[in-house]
């Protein structure tokens, strides 16, 4: 029903005390003990290791950025919902996730006002403009990140070394290149071990593959993410990356590097798996994950930017409605003739 008509007729007064009366409803009459806040708060919990790693590698400024973006997300959601006279649902956790994810994709040296701006865009335009949770087409955090990439292209590509390395160099914040940029522009490889633990320059929450993996596996354990998504995404990155690696190992990095470097891990476990902006059908999920992985490799190896995870997912987000529409599973018994 459209909203207005609903309002017009919903002013039905309740006259009697309902307590003595029986309840009538349509079946089923009892439901699973599951709700949106529970899911979202679990995701926040799963993001803790990545946040901890970001603080460990990049210092207290990481906390500052996370707090600022989460606060800006919550504020924006609150204000929009107030203006639209809708129930305020800022504590359902989804805005918090957006804030955290956005912060984790920013460079540690990114200015606070930039993070706030990105959050406002992510929630205000990326999510609430479509009607709030569940209706957005693009992943709000990634959209905010893409907006910042276009808005502050220089600030968002200025990276700093993790604290441990910076301390060795004896300077406060050393401008550095990310492993992907090193690979792309200077042909230098970074050790897999550093990538795995996260002791490299890069976006705050992306560097430490292991921290993200812990969170992701926890989510998988809780059953909130579909194994197809991370597997399809990382698998496709490894596959397409591997194809090029086999063609020219000197020029192109190995598949493991692709999986560990940049935002691949964060994307695979927390963004490709975003429920709202990913397909619902099994085939659609495969196409989505594999397609995004392919695009990520394409952009990484041949595009102008060193990192393609963000764009790969955003681009596939735009295909989700089409995927849902055209990958409908066969009904039970549809495929056989009587």
């Amino acid at each position, binding site marked *: 029903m459209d909203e207005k008509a609903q309002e017009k007729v919903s002013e039905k007064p309740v006259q009697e005390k309902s307590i003595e009366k029986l309840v009538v409803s349509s079946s089923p009459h009892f439901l699973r003990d599951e709700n949106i806040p529970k899911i979202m708060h679990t995701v926040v919990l799963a993001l803790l290791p990545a946040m901890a790693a970001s603080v460990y590698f990049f210092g207290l400024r990481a906390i500052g950025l996370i707090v600022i973006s989460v606060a800006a997300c919550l504020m924006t959601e609150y204000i929009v919902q107030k203006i639209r006279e809708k129930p305020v649902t800022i504590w359902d956790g989804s805005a918090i996730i957006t804030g955290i994810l956005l912060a984790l994709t920013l460079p540690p040296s990114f200015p606070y006002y930039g993070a706030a701006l990105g959050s406002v865009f992510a929630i205000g335009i990326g999510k609430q403009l479509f009607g709030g949770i569940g209706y957005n087409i693009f992943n709000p955090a990634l959209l905010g990140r893409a907006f910042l990439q276009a808005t502050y*292209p*220089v600030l968002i*590509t*200025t990276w700093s070394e993790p604290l441990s390395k910076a301390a060795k160099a004896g300077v406060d914040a050393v*401008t*550095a*290149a990310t492993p992907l*940029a090193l690979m792309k*522009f*200077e042909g230098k490889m970074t050790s897999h071990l550093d990538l795995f633990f996260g002791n490299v320059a890069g976006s705050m929450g992306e560097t430490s593959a292991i921290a993200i993996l812990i969170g992701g596996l926890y989510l998988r354990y809780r059953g909130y993410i579909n194994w197809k998504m991370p597997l399809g995404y990382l698998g496709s990155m490894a596959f397409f990356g591997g194809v090029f690696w086999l063609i020219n190992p000197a020029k192109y990095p190995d598949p493991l590097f692709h999986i560990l470097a940049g935002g691949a891990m964060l994307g695979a476990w927390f963004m490709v798996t975003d429920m709202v902006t990913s397909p619902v059908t099994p085939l659609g999920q495969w196409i989505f994950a594999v397609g995004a992985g392919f695009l990520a490799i394409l952009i990484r190896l041949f595009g*102008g930017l060193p990192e393609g995870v963000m764009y790969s997912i955003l681009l596939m987000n735009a295909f989700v409605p089409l995927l849902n529409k055209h990958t409908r599973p066969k009904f039970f018994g549809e495929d056989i003739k009587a």
Partner: protein
Amino acid sequence: MNNLATKMFLVLTIIGAVSGGILAGVFHVADPLIQANREKELKEAIFVVLPEAKDYKVLEKEVDKEKITVYKGIDAEGKPVGLAFIADGGGFQGNIRIMVGLNIDYLKLKGIRVLEQNETPGLGNRIKEPQFEDQFKGLEIKPKVEYIKYRKPEKPNQIQAITGATISSDAVVKNINNAVAKVLKNFPQEEVLK
């Protein structure tokens, strides 16, 4: 039907012919102005990259069916001060056209001017900012122009790339190297000095 067809025929033909005529007239007036504008623009660019030049001469050569044009800058006394030529090549998005000024000693650049580019605003398009262009003044071209990142240039043939716009910086350097090489090959110093 026939009547209608005739009418259609007449109307379209006449409208076509009339507009063709009007346009030809306007073109006749506007074209010289447009050509003059182009000329002026070219001249300005040449004098920017060859500051001492007061005039220039066009030298043309055809190599492998490709026309190569260079502009020989001449100072007030009629002495050649350098060569200007256009370096044209791919950038991050679309072509970059650069006017390059080469010292007559064939060792250093005298300056560059980005004429056309389509790079990302705020990032790649900073190649047309003076800070970037000025780096090429007096830059040694041998063995070739290079760029380095994040640091101040260390060698006389190095410039510092624009942060975050490696590809655009790279494209500029590459284009200049290609064009310089082509000019060095086809317009030997002796020939030009003549």
